């Protein structure tokens, strides 16, 4: 949705602004997480970023059962349970329950921020970017899901001389991708699986437009770092990784490949979203308890990129 007063007034839905990020592009960066993603990957490590709407998170372990949220909530039935979309079911989106919660066990993922607000936050670390060759990274969720905001924010960064990176799954209308490519200095392009059928089955969207967008971006010359989450049972076999290496080889603007070992990070967040590890609520029964690939395994998979001549890192 567009704001009223020029580009700086445009608003987006943000669920985190992470300063001091070492691993989202070159140097030390601030990563802005935009809410909403068209994919439904079962291994998603930011499940609070999937829905475009603000959602209620509740940490049961921190809750004091003090009743502050109930006393503060104007809704007759009391505050919404974990995982609810703010503003639905009679919720006034007043966030009084969140304000009232003394232990911060009740939070909302997602708040509306203007480009100017986001930029002010980003600029606080300008000396860090200058010293480290860092900048800002727009991630998510899927940042291309809020194209008007993203473009305005990228333009604002450009005016400030900041290095701007976009971390994307690549699933967006072609014109959006190319529009963003005119403003971004670098793409982090996530590649899950290169098997079209499995891609559709696992993420809920087809692979083909993603690859077509990647090819289109390549022609613009904007550099790309491929990021491959290595997921047990999904793409942690040599054949899958070799296909990714082949993709990297035929995509000339790929400057780096990062293999990201799967971790069970999301379980805690899923708990706070009230989804737990219940497959009926979107959790993967196989991934909830899956171990991370071992360092040896990661090294072996990374070695498959050696013939490409492209710098390959594990993590980051």
């Amino acid at each position: 949705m567009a704001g009223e007063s020029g580009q700086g007034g445009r608003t987006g839905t943000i669920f985190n602004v992470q300063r001091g990020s070492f691993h989202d592009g070159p140097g030390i960066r601030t990563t802005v997480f935009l809410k909403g993603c068209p994919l439904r990957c079962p291994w998603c490590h930011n499940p609070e970023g999937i829905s475009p709407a603000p959602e209620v998170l509740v940490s049961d372990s921190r809750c004091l059962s003090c009743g502050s949220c109930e006393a503060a909530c104007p809704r007759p039935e009391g505050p919404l349970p974990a995982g609810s979309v703010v503003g639905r079911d009679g919720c006034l989106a007043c966030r009084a329950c969140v304000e009232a919660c003394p232990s911060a066990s009740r939070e909302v993922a997602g708040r509306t921020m203007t480009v100017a607000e986001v930029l002010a936050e980003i600029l606080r670390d300008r000396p860090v970017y200058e010293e480290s060759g860092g900048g800002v990274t727009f991630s998510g969720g899927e940042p291309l899901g809020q194209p008007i905001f993203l473009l305005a924010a990228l333009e604002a960064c450009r005016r400030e001389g900041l290095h701007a990176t976009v971390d994307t799954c690549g699933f967006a209308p072609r014109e959006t991708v190319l529009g963003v490519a005119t403003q971004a200095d670098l793409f982090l392009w996530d590649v899950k699986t290169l098997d079209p059928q499995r891609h559709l089955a696992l993420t809920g969207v087809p692979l083909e437009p993603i690859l077509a967008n990647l090819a289109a971006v390549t022609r613009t010359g904007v550099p790309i770092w491929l990021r491959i989450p290595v997921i047990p049972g999904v793409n942690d076999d040599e054949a899958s990784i070799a296909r990714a290496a082949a993709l990297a080889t035929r995509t000339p603007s790929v400057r780096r490949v990062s293999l990201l070992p799967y971790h069970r990070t999301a379980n805690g967040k899923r708990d706070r979203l009230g989804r737990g590890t219940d497959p009926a609520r979107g959790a993967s029964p196989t991934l909830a308890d899956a171990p991370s690939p071992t360092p040896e395994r990661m090294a072996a998979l990374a070695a498959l990129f050696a013939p490409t001549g492209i710098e390959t890192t594990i993590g980051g």
Partner: protein
Amino acid sequence: MNPRTTRLRQESLDTLPTISAERALLLTEFYREHLGRLSTPLLRARSFLHLCEKKTLFLGEGELIVGERGPVPKAVPTYPELTCHSLEDLRVLDSRPKTWYRVAPEVLAAYEETVIPYWRGRSMRDQIFPALPAEWHEAYAAGVFTEFMEQRAPGHTVLDDKVYRKGMNDFRREIAAAISVLDFEHDPEALDRREELLAMDVSCEALVRFAERHAALAEKEAATEPDPARRAELRKIAEVCRRVPAEAPRDFHEALQTYWFCHLGVMTELNGWDAFSPGHLDQHLLPFYRKGLADGTLTEASARELIECFFVKFNNHPAPPKVGVTAAESGTYTDFANINLAGLLADGSDGSNEVTHLLLDVIDEMHLLQPSSNVQVSRKTPDTVLKHVLRVLRKGYGFPSIFNADTVVEEQLRQGKTLEDARAGGCSGCVEVGAFGKEAYILTGYFNLVKVLELALHDGVDPRTGARLGPATGDAASHATFDDLYRAFEAQLGHLVDLKVRGNQIIERLYATRMPAPFLSVLTDDCIAKGRDYNAGGARYNNTFIQAVGIGTVTDALAAVRRLVFDEHGLSLADLVAALDADFEWNEPLRQRLVHKMPKYGNDDDAADDLMLRVFRSSFAAIDGRPSARGGTYRLEMLPTTCHVYFGEVCGATPDGRHAGKPLSEGISPVQGADRRGPTAVFRSAGKMDHVKTGGTLLNMKFAPSVLAGEEGIARLSQLVRTYFRSDGHHVQFNVVSRETLEAAKADPESHRDLIVRVAGYSDYFCDLSDALKDEIIARTEQTEL
């Protein structure tokens, strides 16, 4: 390490700290005969000579650098002329669970029969306490401040390059020249100067005697040594000890032995705080290193071996035993001898060199508790040096600590030092700044900012005891605005700083007149030229520091009061104070709100950081610029050692949600766990303080090893350091956390909320992770460390 240094290191680690009564007995013997027959400076110098001539020598198997402070390694002498331990003190030292020292029955007997009967009532401690006003004693007992000089002498001193250029015989010639120009006709202090200079001369002679005794011992052992290789080493040791410190050193071995004799001399004369430090060791050793390599008398391996032998010596010397409040404020065996690396040369050029890297390798390989090490990073320091430091630091030893050489210079220029002296200076102890070899920069004690706030909230009365410690500035209900409360805070602060300074002035004067340090004066410019003792203002520069503790806690407390009471009107100040007095009993939701929902210093949030600045400015205004009894100036420092724990024990609950008795924040670090926005936000917050106006600030930061993995992790960390230093940050110390810490964090998440761990494609706060993931990361950390 080679087999020799591996063994020496292990022996040092395995040796238990003990108390030795030898020094106390020798001193008692000397004082009994000579007290009243000599001027005070000569009494001190002659007793130093007596110690150097009589003390038991130690020459360990395989040692190359020789000399111990006690009769054997880790045998710690006592200083009954400063503090005469009671039998009860000695039993406590022997039996306490932390920083104990074994006390043998014969030590107890010597104390009971000889030492205590002579020194009780004569020690400095027994002279200081009765001289201080009752009000001072009440504030001291309540934990408003501590007093460094009640058990240890003023010290904290660092050597410059003079002993590598001059021997004791050179100093004696300078002393003779200074005596020859004394003007008895016009200078009313000429006699005092002569006595002081004669005392300095005796102390030079004493150290030479001490070295000659070592030479004789080595010669004697060489005569009976069956192994020809060791025989040659013993002869070399004898040759070195015949040469230095009487004359200036000629080679690398002599240079190290020279410093070590000076170190032992300073630590035998008195037990000055923070031992004694060599300063810019890499710069001092460089000419000897290059010369030795060039003329073939030294190799990198032999230089490394000598440095390792030298390091073991520091580790053999636990801090002199401390009891009571002083043990609480500095509860550690570390005596804070600190080796400086890199930095600047006096001409302003980069001071790092190949010996910097050699020393870093030794620090890494030996990872001993002592000596501490630090690096001074200037704009000119190459990244290769900083990255080498960070690769050592990443292993989780907690050292070297990192200082901003450019800020260190600027701080000293503000204090009125010359540019050259400032550049040749640096940091010692924890983070304190001084002009090496030219300054007496005396720390006087910690000052409890949180107690000050507690008094402001309670009309000047200590809620713990009911004792009135400060002026009546009104009870909680009387403060209608935040500024009213802040004025009360400033009034309490001013009153208690005045009281602390009154005490310091008395103590400084007692040391100046009754406990001179002639040997330390020889090593400190311009004591010879002035004919004045180190403890009496003889040094070129004289700064006296008060170290403020708890600025993070007091900032968060004030921020919470301002937000909750005066902005949101959620609670009256009187009700908040009542909740604090009850330590939040039945009021956990209020405490949680204070912990989670109020502005916190360390998050680049001006709502908190502005108050940090306000408290800093008030503290600075109360302390900086006041004249000291030594003719110097009072200055502010921001460091705690372990005093934030003791000060926390004497403070009730605070408006930041801290429970009664829990530790305060340390240094200028945020309250433990309150910084939730990552390292760049901490640096931004801490960088808002005007570090240049201090004599040192201390910032600690925790990282998990995995965050700093690989060369990219090192690059990022070095960039963070450079960024902080661009904002004039004085010091930063990285704690790369261990498995134990992670497990403690899992058991007690609230105290570890700021712990950052590398999770997957991003880093996160450890405590925000699920238990299963925490377990996984704990396991992963071990893999990282394999």
